[in-house]
């Protein structure tokens, strides 16, 4: 790890000012950033510690919904009484990720900013990685790409977003609240992470002078019928090959509202509005589930080693929706 300066921010304004300076990086829990620094992938010259900012509260929003402070630790969010009661999907997704030790450190803001686990991005022994070195190529596209994207990828990058939390936030239609020098901005979860296109070095739409301050969850009636299904190579403490966040509002067996997002398949949580529409207003059954899955996976394109992800995702969507809807 290269040498660096360290400064603990005491106010949000202070953090934004320090964070906007060249070479600065925010540090929350550090579980991803310090790992990247040890590997020489991230080389900030100054860390601005935002973990002790007063942004860790979890509180109801006026008019329903819940605001989760960006510095709330993953453990505290997963075990918060209101989150477990009203948004068990989010608790489930958080608890499916990492280990207890890491969840005790990791913050919500840091989890949103988590970088891909593509081996070629993580290992500086490989020259070609457009995400790490723009313009250098993509070693994964024709390399070992079993864990890579089947949706929304580009010629330049086939990396996936590794977070579980983000998939649940997408299905729950969360909003990321950010603050910059010109004030506050609200970014719908759907627009927070971006597709790689020809600039895969940019993971999100967060500005260089902006700090994530909170995540807002809208009021919904998904609590009784939601399920996070994570498929991975071992039963615990591994990243998803495919994951599904399924949230349903049911009345008399008919779907009133639906949230559906996939993890492990794209550069961002993969949510297709038409898939949710295919479920709404109909009884949950094999036909509507198949239709939703077709919408989600439309345009999926396998690489050499990850074709299995497409049928796996199809079956995982079906299982998650059936479990959420109480059909199993």
């Amino acid at each position, binding site marked *: 790890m290269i040498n660096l300066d360290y400064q603990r921010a005491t106010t949000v304004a202070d953090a934004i000012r320090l964070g906007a300076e060249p070479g600065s990086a925010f540090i929350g829990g550090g579980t991803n950033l310090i790992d990247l620094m040890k590997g*020489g992938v991230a080389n900030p010259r100054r860390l601005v510690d935002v973990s002790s900012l007063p942004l860790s509260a979890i509180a109801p929003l006026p008019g329903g919904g819940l605001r989760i402070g960006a510095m709330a630790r993953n*453990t505290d969010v997963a075990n918060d009484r209101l989150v*477990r009661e009203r948004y068990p999907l989010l608790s489930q997704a958080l*608890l499916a990720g990492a280990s207890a030790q890491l969840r005790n450190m990791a913050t919500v803001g840091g989890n949103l900013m988590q970088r891909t686990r593509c081996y070629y991005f993580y290992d500086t022994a490989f020259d070609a990685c457009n995400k790490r070195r723009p313009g250098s190529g993509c070693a994964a596209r024709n390399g070992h790409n079993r864990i890579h994207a089947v949706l929304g990828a580009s010629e330049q990058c086939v990396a996936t977003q590794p977070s579980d939390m983000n998939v649940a936030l997408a299905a729950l239609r969360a909003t990321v609240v950010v603050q910059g020098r010109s004030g506050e901005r609200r970014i719908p979860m759907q627009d927070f992470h971006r597709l790689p296109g020809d600039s895969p070095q940019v993971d999100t739409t967060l500005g260089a002078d902006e700090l994530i301050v909170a995540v807002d969850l809208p009021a919904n009636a998904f609590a009784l019928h939601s399920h996070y299904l994570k498929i991975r190579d071992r039963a615990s403490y591994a990243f998803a090959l495919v994951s599904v966040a399924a949230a349903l509002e049911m009345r008399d067996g008919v779907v009133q509202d639906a949230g559906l997002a996939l993890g492990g398949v794209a550069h961002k949580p993969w949510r297709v509005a038409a898939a949710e529409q295919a479920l709404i207003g109909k009884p949950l059954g094999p036909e509507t589930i198949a239709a939703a899955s077709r919408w989600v996976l439309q345009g999926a394109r396998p690489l050499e080693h990850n074709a299995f992800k497409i049928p796996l995702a199809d079956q995982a969507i079906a299982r998650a929706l059936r479990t959420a809807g109480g059909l199993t």
Partner: protein
Amino acid sequence: MDDRHEITGISRRTVLQSASGSAALCAAGVSAQQSEPATAPVPVPSATVRTVALRINGRGYSLKLEPRVTLLDAIREQAGLYGTKKGCDRGQCGACTVLANGRRINACLTLAVMHEGADITTIEGLGTPQALHPMQQAFIENDAFQCGYCTPGQICSAVAMLGEHRNGHASAASPDLRAPMAALSDEEIRERMSGNLCRCGAYTNIVAAVRSVAAKSRT
């Protein structure tokens, strides 16, 4: 290497430290060559040693260290508490697990400077050879280790894990997140301890040790 003469005849630990130190320097050199500056290069700050006050096992330490020093390295190399182990040093194995204000964390993925004022507990702070912590006693009674390298991390992790369960924390193995937590099943223990790897594969006996302490603390 120039320092070879200096380390001759010194303890094995000192030799190992020096060896890993040079390896780290080489690695840093390689990655510095390969990583590209983002836009306009920002110079690497020169070493800025600062004094960091840490409280470890109830004792105050005033350590002089650079901001990049991890909590793990500060505990081992500066405070001289070698019970906490460095396994992968990348947050994957759990050997470095310590408690920060009672919460288990990976000491390798956090900086010492971030823990000023925190209460750190390492394996040395849990029990003494004369008065073992119940979890240490249970690991011995259940033969819950072979080589023992992961054991301090396993024990710190298990102690915190039982506290989490007592406080109603859920896990991925909990059947219903909206219901109160039931007694710890073996499946729950395994899931909640999944951040601690044991290369010798002593898992069956580790689960038995944790189970025995959990059962005692319930009564």
